[in-house]
């Protein structure tokens, strides 16, 4: 089990609080992947039925259909090449493949920032994924780091959206730049950038209205917002984060693709991971579009936004049987 030893080392360096939060939040995810553990220990033989069941478990976790097929094919090859017969031997190989997929080249940990000026972070996504809430949490995070933060209320469409951001602004004591409901969001962004320059803020976080990726006029609006920000601060936005609801299925791939085209998405935030969903689609998105997950949302509280970590993610997924292997590993 050298794989889990490695994992353990990687994780012991991290604070326990974060890990336990991750594990708590991912309890449901682990349940689904827990079945993998069962599959590996209960099955005596690697045969067609075994692969079929594994395929169903992965698809059941919303890992994209194409990615699952690829993964299964690779495992098949692996089994043939190494003449593996015991399912238990295959388990670390699968874990490692998943971690590798999620980590990619491993270069994009944390958020990009602008060393000499305002860092602009733009949030995009479909309706109801939790953009505004995530912005509130991220503002709080930056605030904790002693940064001077400003928010831009770019969702001028949905009823109550500006007020929602304002409530978050009050909670974390951060100013919100806004216009009337129904005004041009690009104009709001322009105002916000000017205000950010005048007030000498460190981080400007921009909210946008939720939009479905197949609405071409709304997507054009988004690329206009992007252009305006870019024109006012060269090199900005330094991060464009696509917020994904963890319950979303295959459509998340399409979202990542089309939002990527129109607003140059640089990373993902996976929300609502605290209980219901498996969020496996991020594996497919990482695999097919090479977009890294930067944060995960694990609840409704201010401090429920955590930096994504592939080790922890997979660790939490497999926590169920890491415990079996090494009981001391989990001391929450």
């Amino acid at each position: 089990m050298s794989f889990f030893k490695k994992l353990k080392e990687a994780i012991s360096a991290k604070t326990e609080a974060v890990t336990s939060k991750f594990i708590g939040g991912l309890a449901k995810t682990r349940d689904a992947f827990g079945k993998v553990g069962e599959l590996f220990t209960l099955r005596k033989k690697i045969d067609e039925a075994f692969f079929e069941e594994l395929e169903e478990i992965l698809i059941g976790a919303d890992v994209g259909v194409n990615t699952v097929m690829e993964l299964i094919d690779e495992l098949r090859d692996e089994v043939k090449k190494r003449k593996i017969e015991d399912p238990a031997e295959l388990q670390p190989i699968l874990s490692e493949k998943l971690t590798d997929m999620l980590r990619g080249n491993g270069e994009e940990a944390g958020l990009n920032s602008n060393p000499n000026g305002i860092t602009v972070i733009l949030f995009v996504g479909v309706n109801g994924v939790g953009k505004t809430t995530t912005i509130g949490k991220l503002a709080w995070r930056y605030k904790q780091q002693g940064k001077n933060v400003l928010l831009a209320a770019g969702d001028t469409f949905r009823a109550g959206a500006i007020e929602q951001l304002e409530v978050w602004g009050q909670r974390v004591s951060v100013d919100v730049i806004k216009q009337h409901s129904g005004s041009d969001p690009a104009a709001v962004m322009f105002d916000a950038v000017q205000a950010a320059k005048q007030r000498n803020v460190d981080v400007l976080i921009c909210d946008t209205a939720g939009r479905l990726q197949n609405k071409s006029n709304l997507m054009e609006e988004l690329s206009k917002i992007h252009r305006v920000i870019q024109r006012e601060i060269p090199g900005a936005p330094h991060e464009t984060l696509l917020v994904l609801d963890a319950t979303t299925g295959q459509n998340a791939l399409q979202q990542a693709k089309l939002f990527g085209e129109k607003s140059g998405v640089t990373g993902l935030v996976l929300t609502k991971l605290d209980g219901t969903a498996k969020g496996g689609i991020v594996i497919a998105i990482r695999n097919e579009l090479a977009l890294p997950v930067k944060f995960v949302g694990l609840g409704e509280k201010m401090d429920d936004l955590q930096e994504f970590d592939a080790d922890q993610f997979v660790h939490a997924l497999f926590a169920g049987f890491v415990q079996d292997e090494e009981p001391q590993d989990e001391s929450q």
Partner: protein
Amino acid sequence: MAFEGLTSRLQNVFGKLKGRGKVSEDDVNEAMREVRLALLEADVNFKVVKDFIAKVKEQALGQEVQKSFTPAMVIIDIVNKELTELMGGTQEKLAKSNKPPTVVLMAGLQGAGKTTLTGKLAKLLLTQKNNPLLVAGDIYRPAAIKQLEVLGGQIGVPVFTLGDQVSPVEIAKQGVAKAKAEGYDYVLIDTAGRLQIDEELMQEIKDIHSAVEPDEVLLVVDAMTGQEAVNVAKSFHEQLALTGVVLTKLDGDTRGGAALSVKAVTGCPIKFASTGEKIDQLEAFHPDRMASRILGMGDMLSLIEKAQTNIDAEKAKELERKMRTAEFSFYDFLEQMEQVRNLGPLEQLLDMMPGMGKLKSNPNFKIDEKQINRTEAIAKSMTHAEKLKPDIINYSRRKRIAAGSGTTVADVNRLLKQFEDMKKMMKQFSGMMGPNGKPKGGMGALKNMFGGKNKGPRFPF
């Protein structure tokens, strides 16, 4: 690719059979693999898929397929029928209580679209001459009450609220009491989004349920939900005894397999589908159309229905006469454009057509609504005489038209050329029409309009 229709995939499978008259069990197995993938890619729950495939396979091995010359079509037909059946067969309406008010309780995860839906449902009830009251029961999400109030204001429906410091159970109770006292016939109770495993919040909505005894408990489900839809629906159903489901955000490009999963585990009918951001974009749910969509086969029925309600039959007849006699002017052209536009955004129309998904995924194929506006501007910048007789439009007139419409002379030239081509095509069309107006092979010409015989979309039926 994810959006390639099942039709074309099955045609690939059965294309190999050409020349061999018989369908073997292996062929059916291969076809079933494609059906399975199509359903999984559409986010139908894998357990539901498994049962479904077993059922369809049995029929597919039957006589009907064996005898058919077009086994792909027969199998699609079986799949389609079974899917429709599984989704509830016929369309179901909102409950109406014998003792008004009818109480409707919304439930669902965060961000499913409950508040927006509550507003839309009120609007729909309003157009059906009902008198609804909205109750703001989401006290947790910042500005959720405000959102409902804005929606209520837009459609002129009152919103009952006690602020965000009173328990939702109390708010719901008082809301229903108010509706009773003041003669409202529907009470729509918005609630906060909650995870089905959040015991505290689930207890709260159960308390609301027992306090107001709703006639209708609607689970609001995001159409983009993946495999998780089953767990969510099952858990909500066990705890709340749902009576119906509403699918939201169906105007996206998701295939919406969640619909099937939800129906399969709860047995509750899907009553409505939300198809846009505007407050009147809520439609009755049609299982048969959803079946086609999940399979990636388009939605011709909705398109035809849209055309029927939006296109003036008299005008269409007149237009047809003009087409036949080729006395087609720019006035008719504008009229026609207006009618097509009444059907809604072009992109949405194309989505409903079978095979268009494939066409749309082609990067060279782009619909530019602005281009249509430009074309309209050019036509409108013509004088009366020019509209009737485009032949008189010389260079100086072209320059004037271009200036008037804010386009270039080249744009004007292009439109004139297109107009001429259209007229020519119409002459051909009218040539193809028999004496009683029945087309003789008009479909072929239509197909050519989409870019040649081989490149064109394949119509499944």
